[in-house]
């Protein structure tokens, strides 16, 4: 017997570790709509297997909790059982020796608080209210409900124009989304059960790049109804696209020179080239949508009043987005050289980019707009660009790909620093940023908060400060016209109508606050459907594309194709697109990774395909 031995994992342990990885992916891709009580009971079984067996609460208590949850699920429990579950879980939390036990107790308590009504539903009615409304995960998670398996199968058949037609049934911004969508569709892709999510956005891009010119469908017979759409961003234009197809004449009122909203004025060219955005906009306009550019709705000089619109159109859709910046509220913020990210990106969009040659730039913020500002500043010639953020890099809300790209292009991430003051010279120009170093602290509301580090503030010399800490909505003119709002956001109902404002609808960022493109598009789609009904019609939007039957093929585990990018030294010198599309071979391989949840599993029974709306 040796005194010490090098530890080596047993074969069984290696396999179990491997199974843990499989399980992690399986949990990530857990379908929406599962019964939370049933899931809790299943978790308990796992927790119980994890117990070391030393202490009573964990060794015995977790099993007892599991039994009681099974009783709830079998309809054998009473409200007294529920109370006993709660007291037992509390006792486990309070008295277990290690985290294996007390965290298990806490998770059960969290469930009791978070979905108590589901427990009660089981006890009183013998079932829960959960239902698989949309069994195809990607479709369920796409706010616009785009038929993802449908278009992927068309791409696999090299029918790119049909793929685009099918996407346009639910989302007219095919090219834009192909380039910049945050792709919530991929988060619970069932392919995760096998290996990794399908690169859905990449496939969409392949279709958008190879479809050729695909004209929009014929519009329905004109209804004689007119709809005014305030704001020519993704939400407004989506609503216009569908309403025009339904035969209602739409007029889009846009305050700026170009259509596209934040897609034009917020997203830099290197992510979404203007000519690619134009593909979507041209297709929308080809339906016959009218536009009034450089036109403001409001009560100022030269502006058209909301009242006038309301009187002259049969329905109004407000989709003004969130186009004003939030302020830091620190001394020196009005210094020369302090600009808002929104303003800067808008100037670039309008063809008046600032010149940062040789400048030291600090970007404040950790969201996608901050990354857009950072990477744009680099392209505008800045000597140094630092991103200052009061939490850690890992806590940033920007997509990890964007942060990585900014770093690759030379940006420095100054995490755990909160802006405290901006110093200026006599002429009022920025000279430095004073920042308060932070440490990461307690988790509140699901996110760790920055806490006092006890260290002295630091001084960072700089010439330009770009503020990218969020956007606000210019809601006042509409509030004055009687549109209800709460903290600047319009209070639209689920169907996007405004209560007690007959014929007025609203959606997109101005209702939700700054969100994603696809959510704005979805809001436009919802508004179009309900405005059509409001106008007394029930037109259907369909694609006419028949989706191919799934192939019978082996689904052998296979890596996910990721998108390649132009090399950093080249790309940071210009505003040309950074990302390269997939090759034909890559697209084909990736398209065949799709498991066709529309036809396998629950999808073949119910809800696999929504052919019209």
């Amino acid at each position, binding site marked *: 017997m040796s005194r010490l031995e090098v530890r080596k994992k047993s074969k069984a342990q290696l396999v179990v570790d491997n199974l843990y990885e499989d399980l992690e992916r399986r949990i990530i891709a857990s379908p929406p*709509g*599962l*019964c939370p009580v*049933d899931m809790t009971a299943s978790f308990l079984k796992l927790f119980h297997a994890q117990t070391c067996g030393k202490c009573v609460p964990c060794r015995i208590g977790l099993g007892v909790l599991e039994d009681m949850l099974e009783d709830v*699920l*079998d309809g054998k429990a009473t409200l007294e059982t529920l109370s006993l579950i709660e007291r037992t879980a509390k006792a486990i939390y309070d008295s277990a020796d290690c985290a294996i036990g007390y965290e298990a107790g806490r998770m059960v308590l969290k469930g009791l608080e978070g979905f108590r009504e589901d427990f009660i539903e089981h006890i009183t*009615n013998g*079932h*829960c209210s*959960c*239902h*698989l409304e949309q069994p195809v995960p990607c479709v369920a998670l796409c706010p616009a409900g785009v038929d993802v398996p449908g278009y992927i199968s068309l791409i696999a058949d090299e029918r790119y124009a049909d793929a685009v037609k099918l996407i346009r049934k639910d989302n007219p911004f095919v090219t834009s989304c192909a380039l910049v969508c945050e792709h919530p569709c991929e988060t619970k892709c069932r392919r995760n059960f096998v290996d990794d999510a399908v690169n859905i956005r990449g496939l969409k891009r392949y279709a958008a790049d190879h479809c050729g010119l695909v004209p929009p469908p014929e519009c329905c017979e004109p209804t004689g109804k007119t709809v005014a759409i305030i704001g020519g961003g993704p939400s407004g234009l989506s609503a216009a696209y569908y309403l025009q197809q339904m035969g209602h004449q739409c007029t889009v009122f846009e305050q700026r020179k170009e259509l596209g909203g934040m897609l034009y004025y917020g997203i830099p060219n290197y992510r979404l080239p203007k000519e690619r955005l134009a593909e979507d906009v041209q297709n929308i306009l080809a339906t016959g949508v009218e536009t009034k550019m450089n036109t403001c709705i409001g009560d100022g000089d030269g502006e058209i009043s909301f009242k006038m619109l309301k009187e002259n159109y049969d329905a109004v859709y407000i989709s003004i987005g969130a186009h004003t910046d939030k302020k830091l509220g620190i001394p020196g913020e009005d210094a020369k050289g302090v600009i808002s990210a929104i303003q800067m990106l808008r100037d670039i969009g309008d063809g008046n980019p600032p010149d940062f040659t040789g400048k030291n730039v600090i970007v404040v913020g950790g969201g996608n707009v901050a990354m857009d500002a950072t990477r744009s500043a680099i392209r505008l010639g800045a000597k140094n660009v630092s991103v200052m953020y009061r939490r850690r890099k890992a806590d940033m809300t920007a997509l990890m790909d964007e942060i990585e790209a900014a770093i690759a292009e030379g940006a420095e991430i100054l995490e755990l620093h909160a802006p405290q003051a901006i110093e200026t010279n006599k002429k009022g120009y920025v000279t430095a940023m004073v920042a308060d170093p932070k440490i990461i602290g307690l988790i509140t509301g699901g996110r760790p908060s920055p806490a006092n580090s006890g260290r002295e503030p630091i001084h960072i010399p700089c010439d330009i400060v770009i503020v990218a800490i969020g956007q606000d909505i210019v809601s006042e003119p509409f509030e004055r016209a009687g549109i209800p709002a709460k903290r600047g956001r319009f209070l639209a109902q689920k169907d996007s109508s405004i209560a007690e404002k007959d014929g007025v609808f609203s959606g997109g960022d101005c209702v939700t606050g700054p969100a994603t493109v696809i959510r704005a598009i979805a809001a436009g789609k919802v508004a179009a459907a309900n405005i059509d009904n409001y106008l007394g019609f029930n037109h259907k939007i369909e694609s006419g594309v028949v989706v191919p*039957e*799934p*192939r*019978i*093929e*082996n689904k052998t585990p296979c890596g996910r194709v990721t998108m390649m990018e132009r090399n950093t030294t080249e790309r940071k010198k210009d505003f040309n697109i950074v990302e390269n599309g997939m090759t034909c071979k890559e697209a084909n391989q990736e398209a065949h990774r799709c498991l066709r949840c529309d*036809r396998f599993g629950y999808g*073949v*029974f*119910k809800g696999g395909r929504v052919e019209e709306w």
Partner: protein
Amino acid sequence: MVNIKINDVPISVEEGTTILEACREAKMIVPTLCYLKDINEIGACRVCVVEIKGIERLVTSCNNTVKEGMEIYTNSPKVRDARRINIKLILSQHNCFCPTCVRSGNCQLQKVANDLEFGSGTFKQHITEEKWPMDFPLIRDESKCIKCMRCIQICDKVQSLKVWDIAKTGSRTTVNVSLGRNIKEADCALCGQCITHCPVAALSGRDDKRPVFSQNGMLNTRRKTTVVQVAPAVRTAWAEAFKLSRKFASPERLAGALRLMGFDYVFDTTYAADLTIMEEGSEFLERLKHKEDYQWPMFTSCCPGWVRFLKSQYPDMVDCLSTAKSPQQMQGAIIKNYFADKIHEDPENIFSVSIMPCIAKKAECALPTMDSTGTGPDVDVVLNTREFVDYMKSLNIDVYGLPEDRFDSPCGEGTGAAVIFGTTGGVMEAALRSCYYLATGQNPDPDAFHGVRGMDGWKEAAIDINGTEVKVAVVSGLGNARKLIEAVRRGEVFYHFVEVMACPGGCVGGGGQPIHEGKEMAEIRSKNLYFLDSQNERRFSHENPEVLKTYEEYLEKPLSRMSHKLLHTDHHGWDMPLAPKLKKR
């Protein structure tokens, strides 16, 4: 054409053929359990799996199509093992007390299991139970449900009612009334299509045999005069269980069987069907005369499933229904009034039974509006064709020795026009034959209106009656009925007179008829009814001598006061649960 090999035998089949159909063409049988062609092709039971060369996992044959060069193995050891395990899994959750089960011998699970050469060993049983109101005409037995989902699909896709849905989640997933409703609160039409498409006995009709046949039943205690009526569609289906030829299984032999069971009087509902034509036809001509006083079209009212549907889905159109009672209820009312007088019997001393192809009739006879004498229901008990057959079997009669017998008179004779009441288009055709006569005084060619025959779900015709063009339509299946109503409401179509039968193909395909796995029997049964019509010496309801005599002796004339009292009904006289979407408003 696609060239494939099935069990190494080459065959060419049409493109788009499912593997299952290709195997059937090649006479290589693949067992199925949840599969229902065009309606339930969801591969839930995983029994129809086959092996495909080059594909690692098994493939369901019911919902995958053949591809060029495919090599299919329907019976490889891997396939057989998977099928056996899957069947054993289903059996572990199925109440397998087969000997007393109504579907024993006619159960697809039993058949597939029997055919699989099981050997010993089963999984531990976990049977679940659910409460069900056993007084409802439709019974669901959770312990037998195999979650094939056919009932959900039939109700959704064919009948458009969505009464059934998935209930519960995860491992507890089962089927139950949708939206968490109790069946009694649901807008179930009681068509019974879910029953006839259930592969096991999870769904069945309420068994009402006891009060008739048991030791304390009316046939044995003889406390009352027992009468029985038998519907047109029963005569074409009852003998299927005994594999009798259609020729041998004549209506007269059916009468013989009922007599043998001990009923005092054996009537044919065709008598009341002719009566229905007299009343409904006259009502239609009356409505035509005063067009502006009525909501159009006029709908037939002889199908209680349809009446339940209309009341629950389109309550604002209930006045479109003819006020005529269904033949069952006309016969019932005539028996306890006119016939009771004839035999000098008090109505409360008559026990009236009907043999029907229909589950909804079990609810209809119990409606508060169906008591014309004030002494109780005009029809006391409704038995379905299946209950009649089951009782026949229990008597251990040699069916080949069954004598033919005549139906009793009066109220026992019907014309050919009445016989076709049992099939889609039949009521319309019978009505048109007599309407033509009533309006013109002349008989048309009895086959003049053959345009409304056939199994199409929505048929239409325009008929010239005395210079007036009458537009008629015939629909069967409630999904088709809904399509027609929606088109009428949108103003896309206009009809004067519409016949609706809830079951696809009409009563011949009724929810109370014998069940044949995977086979729709309506068409073949319907042909038999048209044959019987063509053989009948009388083919016009207005020539039924017993009906004419009833008017002469008792009712006076169609739509008379007495007719209204006995033969017509107020469809507003009882409540039907509304469709969920109407309730919300």
